């Protein structure tokens, strides 16, 4: 091997940094996750399936958690794009403040956002009071859960799209327009293909965050079994009944399902990059 041919890197030695990465990931991610699997492996297969896969109440909770997270992430991907667009393409007074506002859901303790949303959207609250007479209850329904998850996921959707938009030259759009493309055509043929991968990663992050979110959802959900009971709450209920095996089993199922979903989305992203 020709040492001179190697590129110089800022951090010393591939060996050391790679070793550090592996140790760090193991301590922080792999060992706790492995613990979860080992814990649930103490259940027999039939027990595992009857408790964490086939139980109607657990199934309803999965459907709710994944469904609400999916809807919220989709809405976030759409409107997060609009917010990012405004923040990148326009100059206006107070732009920095708006920009900082986007990060607020990150900083806010999730319990606080949950309680605030519940107060607002309960039938006695400002927003809920307007919606309730129209027959649209939000708090204590699945819709409330989606609202909470939109708030929690918004920063992911905006912050992933923003840099991609910043990197995109305005000249590209101008060139397309001068070649006779209409507004929709510019959007669908020029802008979207360029930023689709980042929209997808924003979607994935918001989705993943939404699946596991507990603090904010707990307050607004109403927590009725079969209706508004999310999977993380079921885990906590199991733990409070001293059933750590059952809790671990639900954890494993959620982990496997979300990992496969995120994997599929990443593959989609990979393909969309290749065919640009």
């Amino acid at each position, binding site marked *: 091997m020709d040492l001179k041919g190697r590129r110089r890197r800022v951090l010393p030695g591939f060996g050391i940094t790679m070793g550090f990465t592996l140790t760090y990931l193991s301590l922080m991610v792999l060992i706790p996750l492995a613990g979860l699997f080992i814990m649930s492996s103490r259940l027999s297969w039939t027990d595992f399936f009857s*408790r964490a896969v086939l139980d*109607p*109440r657990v199934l309803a909770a999965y459907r709710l958690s994944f469904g609400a997270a999916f809807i919220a992430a989709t809405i976030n991907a759409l409107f997060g794009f609009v917010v990012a667009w405004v923040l990148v393409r326009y100059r206006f007074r107070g732009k920095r403040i708006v920009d900082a506002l986007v990060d607020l859901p990150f900083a806010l303790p999730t319990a606080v956002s949950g309680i605030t949303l*519940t*107060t607002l959207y*309960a*039938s*006695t*609250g400002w927003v809920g009071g307007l919606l309730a007479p129209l027959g649209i209850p939000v708090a*204590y329904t699945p819709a409330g859960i989606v609202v909470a998850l939109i708030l929690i996921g918004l920063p992911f959707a905006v912050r992933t799209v923003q840099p991609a938009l910043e990197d995109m030259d305005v000249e590209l759009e101008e060139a397309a327009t001068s070649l006779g493309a209409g507004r929709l055509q510019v959007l669908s043929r020029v802008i979207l293909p360029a930023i689709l991968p980042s929209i997808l990663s924003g979607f994935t992050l918001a989705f993943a965050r939404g699946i596991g979110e507990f603090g904010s959802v*707990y307050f607004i959900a*109403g*927590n*009725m*079994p*079969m209706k508004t009971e999310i999977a993380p*709450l079921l885990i*906590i*209920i*199991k*733990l*409070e*009944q*001293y*059933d750590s095996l*059952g809790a671990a089993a639900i954890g494993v199922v959620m982990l496997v399902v979300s990992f496969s979903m995120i994997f599929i989305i990443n593959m989609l992203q990979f393909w969309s990059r290749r065919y640009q």
Partner: protein
Amino acid sequence: MQKKLIGAILAVVLFGFGGMSFAETIELLNVSYDPTRELYREFNDEFVKYWKEKTGQAVIVRQSHGGSGKQARAVIDGLEADVVTLALAGDVDAISERGLLPADWQKRLPGNSSPYTSTLALLVRKGNPKNIKSWGDLTRVGVQVITPNPKTSGVARWNYLAIWGYVLRRELGKDYVARLKNPQDPAVIAAQDKARAFITKVFKNVPVLDSGARDATNTFVQRRIGDVLINWENEILLSSNELASAGVEIVIPEVSILAEPTVAVVDKNVDRKGTRSVAQAYLEYLYSPVGQDIAGRNYYRPTSREAAAKYSKQFPKIELFTIDDVFGGWPEATRVHFADGGEFDRIYIP
């Protein structure tokens, strides 16, 4: 938060000075459930004085409050409680199953280790617009009931069992306790079926299932959801002044369950820390005239005859049944009603 901080600074200062000049300072940790905050704040001050006078030792009692089940979990997971004062014997049983105290812990102190008792009360909107007088009104169409999830909340288990027991009493008549001794009796089986149908109807009227007593109170008082809230009698009486201004009224059903919050020394922890004698004295002091008086002042029903007589005016006279009489004790009630796949779970299976 600020109080905790001041407490911590005080503890450090006292500890420092104590180490220098006096004999050693002993620290006790009392792990308790939510509504006992005011009770133990008062009791701890008295106990510290009493112990200082009796032995010359300085004691600091630290408190931890939270949902009863959650607190039991924390002790199991290693929170070094010297004593636990929890909402129900079932939670202390769970700690004892992990070997932290012997299985017969409940026999070590008088009255099944319950120095004070309580029962349940209903809170309704001002003027009682839905005319709710008792448990029987909770199944009416259009009455929204707020009670937490029995899976996660101590008081919610008492609520559930009070309603179930009320139906048995109604169906089986005055000698229901004796008749329940014979579970094969067709009348008893029919009464149990009635109770099951009744509780299912009640929970159909529950719009929000909070996980703890304090959350449920917030839902009812602050969000103004629901027509009736079921909660501890002591908690409702204690805050009756604030509640009146919040536009709600108290209703106490004429038949109810005798709730016995239990106290116990955690053997493994006191033996390691060398605090057994003071922990034992702490719990025994709850049974003393001073302790009983403090319990009564904080709207717990005292167990000593003198204190009970002194405070009898603040508690309505009602018929109370015990969990042992009607449900065969906590382990049995938990197995039948609250375990996974038990009666409570079946309510929600369509």
